């Protein structure tokens, strides 16, 4: 773990703005050190020793037709297996810095909170990627879908950093898959600059410890950060799906920088025995007239721990803001644990804010209703769990991806994944499925 929080050597030739940022990051990292549970932000994250766990088999399925596929293996961009259309600019961060590509000066400036993970991996920019999404729809109407596959083939520490620059008015759906060796210790940071009026759907599938091969290793660590800055009228929809083997913590920082900007953060987790999944989010209403919504749902099996800390900051000047929060945890075993902290920090009175949180097991009345219709108790439970998951999965704009997520979540808990899905044959279903 220690190597995760050690600054990597600063590259020799970088422009002044970046040198300053790198040096400041290194200084702050030296200052605060590796995170511990004594820090409020890391209160529920156990970074200590972790028992060995087995890898999960990773289905080979990939999205049928992504506009672009980018593969990063062990921190290196695998250009051979990647496939990028001409309309997109994909290059290394080092190259983007050297060529001063649009928006590159935002590198390390979007995720600049006092987070050791950010500080540490900022210096990893040399191995990272820059992706520029221009306005307009190159493929005749369809929203471009970018698939980013981050794999680890070995144990040990792995730093990753990607910057997405989304032009004003552009639309894109970004899917990140983090998978591979169960012993890997990962620290991955994604920065997204959402231009004015742009719409970005970002899906992070946390599948660390899911591999093609059966392996047992000391359980890994998957620390992820997704940071977005959202300009006026921009929309950022984040979907964090945590299914990793071992300890995972995903932090999402969304800063609403312009009027009419909107951030919708959703999280879904399925936590099996021996694993702990943390989700930490901060939505910062920095300007008037922005809106946000947060929904988190956690399924926790016997012996699993899931924690959610969801913060909303509404500054003094951010009048006319509105925000909602709904955090839910479903305990599926006697020794499942859940921690929830729905936190509001509001500095002006022209604000609409509401939040709710609930922890419990499956609703006995719903179970009775389903059983009274002839479903046995196991089927009724599975159906209710699938329904719980479906509510969040439904917000993913890509239908194939949404059903894949449901499949992973239920599979991760050893539940039948066909239940509750619309398996009646798509021709007959009519309005339920979008035309493909």
């Amino acid at each position, binding site marked *: 773990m220690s190597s995760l929080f050690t600054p990597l050597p600063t590259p020799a030739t970088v422009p002044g703005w970046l040198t300053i940022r790198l040096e400041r990051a290194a200084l702050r990292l030296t200052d605060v050190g590796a995170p511990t549970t004594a820090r409020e932000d890391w209160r529920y994250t156990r970074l200590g020793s972790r028992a060995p766990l087995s890898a999960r088999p990773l289905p080979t399925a990939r999205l049928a037709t992504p506009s672009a596929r980018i593969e990063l293996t062990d921190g290196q961009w695998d250009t051979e297996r990647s496939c990028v259309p001409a309309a997109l600019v994909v290059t290394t961060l080092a190259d983007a810095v050297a060529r001063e590509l649009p928006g590159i000066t935002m590198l390390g400036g979007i995720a600049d909170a006092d987070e050791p993970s950010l500080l540490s991996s900022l210096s990893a920019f040399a191995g990272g990627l820059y992706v520029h999404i221009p306005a307009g729809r190159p493929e005749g109407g369809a929203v471009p879908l970018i698939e980013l596959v981050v794999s680890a083939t070995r144990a040990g520490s792995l730093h990753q950093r990607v910057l997405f620059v989304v032009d004003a008015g552009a639309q894109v759906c970004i899917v990140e898959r983090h998978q591979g060796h169960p012993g890997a210790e990962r620290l991955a940071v994604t920065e997204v600059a959402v231009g004015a009026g742009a719409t970005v759907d970002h899906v992070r599938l946390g599948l660390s410890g899911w591999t093609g091969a059966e392996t047992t290793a000391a359980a890994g660590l998957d620390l992820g950060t997704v940071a977005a800055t959202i300009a006026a009228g921009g929309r950022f929809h984040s979907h964090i799906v945590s299914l990793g083997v071992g300890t995972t913590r995903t932090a999402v920082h969304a800063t609403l920088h312009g009027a009419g900007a909107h951030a919708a953060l959703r999280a879904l987790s399925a936590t099996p025995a021996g694993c702990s999944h943390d989700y930490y989010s901060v939505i910062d209403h920095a300007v008037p007239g922005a809106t946000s919504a947060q929904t988190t749902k956690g399924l926790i099996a016997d012996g699993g721990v899931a924690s959610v800390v969801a913060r909303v900051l509404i500054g003094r000047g951010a009048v006319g803001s509105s925000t909602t929060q709904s955090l839910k945890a479903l305990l599926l075993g006697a020794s*499942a644990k859940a921690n929830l902290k729905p936190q509001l920090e509001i500095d002006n009175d022209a604000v609409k*804010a509401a939040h709710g949180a609930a922890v419990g*097991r499956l609703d006995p009345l719903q179970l009775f209703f389903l059983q009274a219709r002839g479903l046995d108790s196991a089927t009724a439970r599975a159906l209710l769990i699938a329904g719980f998951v479906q509510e969040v999965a439904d917000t993913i704009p890509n239908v194939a991806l949404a059903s894949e997520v449901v499949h992973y979540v239920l599979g991760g808990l050893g539940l039948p994944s066909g239940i509750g899905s619309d398996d009646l044959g798509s021709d007959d279903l009519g309005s339920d499925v979008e035309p493909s």
Partner: protein
Amino acid sequence: MVSMSASAEVIAEFTEKKYAAGFVTDIESETLPPGLDEDTVRFISGKKDEPEWLLEFRLKAYRHWLTLEEPTWAHVGYPEIDYQAMSYWSAPKVKGNLKSLDEVDPELLRTYEKLGIPLYERAILAGVAVDAVFDSVSIATTYKDQLKEKGIIFCSFSEAAREHPELIKASLGSVVPYTDNYFAALNSAVFSDGSFIYIPKGVRCPMELSTYFRINEKKTGQFERTLIVAEEGSYVSYLEGCTAPMRDENQLHAAVVELVALERAEIKYSTVQNWYPGDAEGKGGIYNFVTKRGVCRGRASKISWTQVETGSAITWKYPSCILQGDDSVGEFYSVALSNHRQQADTGTKMIHLGKNTRSTIVSKGIAAGHGKQTYRGLVRIAKKADGARNHTQCDSLLLGGACTADTVPYIEVQNDSAQVEHEATTSTISDDQLFYLMQRGLGEEDAVNLIVNGFCKEVFRELPMEFAVEAQRLIEVSLEGAIG
């Protein structure tokens, strides 16, 4: 609407003098020079003829306090407190022990008149037994005889330490150990007085018991200590009220309250806290750093906290319940108001240990002016707390663009049969609401008060009637000029 015109009168009455309890009583008192060391602790203990074990408790607490650092996690800001610059002992000069109210300094009694709590008549009319703590020393207790018949002990803490050492020894520090936190450690070292209540097995206390706390002297801290023990099947309702003079300086109030409820016992603890809040610019006011905690030790016992916090420059308090006995019940009802430069970081902890334990939290925060409000709460369901339930409702009302309201709830569940629900809203008074009420003929101030009252209703109704009226009035007065 009769009640409306009545409240309008009340407002008019208070327009001139916003903090009505802000006078100083001119009486002779004995005050220790500023400073804190082991000798201070010994001096206090000696003044009170305390047994050796109690002095030992104080000294252990003092030594532990020296190792601690002042907590910084609360959302409050204040200049560093110089613990050597305040006095830890101040007492009205009296000759010997007080045997009856006649021996109380008449000037003191006039103070209570001014505060609206004459010890005689109103106490009798309201059926309230009043203990008054004046600069940390309990002055007089009414109704002692009547309570004595039932075996109820209601006296000052010092008296209890002398007369009922076994009861004190068994429970002191058992709910809030001196190691608990910075201010609890300080209190354990230097507490001067407070109230002690003991309700014997099966006894239902026939009247509301009540203590008024008053800080009078300059540059003194108040460190009272309250302990209530309710034996099996007993019931008691206790009220405390707090006021202090208007001064430019900040004064520290660091109290500790411990409640113990045994099987099927019920303790209802109500607070109307109106310490001097400081002026509109934030000058002066009390730092109210209080540790209050109750343990439902026996099966089916119940502890209910109700608080109306309108005073103090800074409030830092989390009246909590440890639900140890199976089927025990914890409740927390709170209205906290911060106007001008007031800061309040308050809430509760509900620790569910026993099976089928239930808790309810209703918190209403009101921020106006440059006021800062933070609700901080913890609901923890331990592994063995099968069937535990919690419901939390936590609402904030913001009046004005410069105030803040934070909500920091922690929910930690380790038992799958638990059911925990948390709901919260943050809102302001809408123009539509105001317009609607004003169109029906209400003045703006009345309309605001009506809405604020509605906001607080769930909490007010938990208070005994006469206190509910006082609480409502306090809120109205505290909000004076907050709108418009």
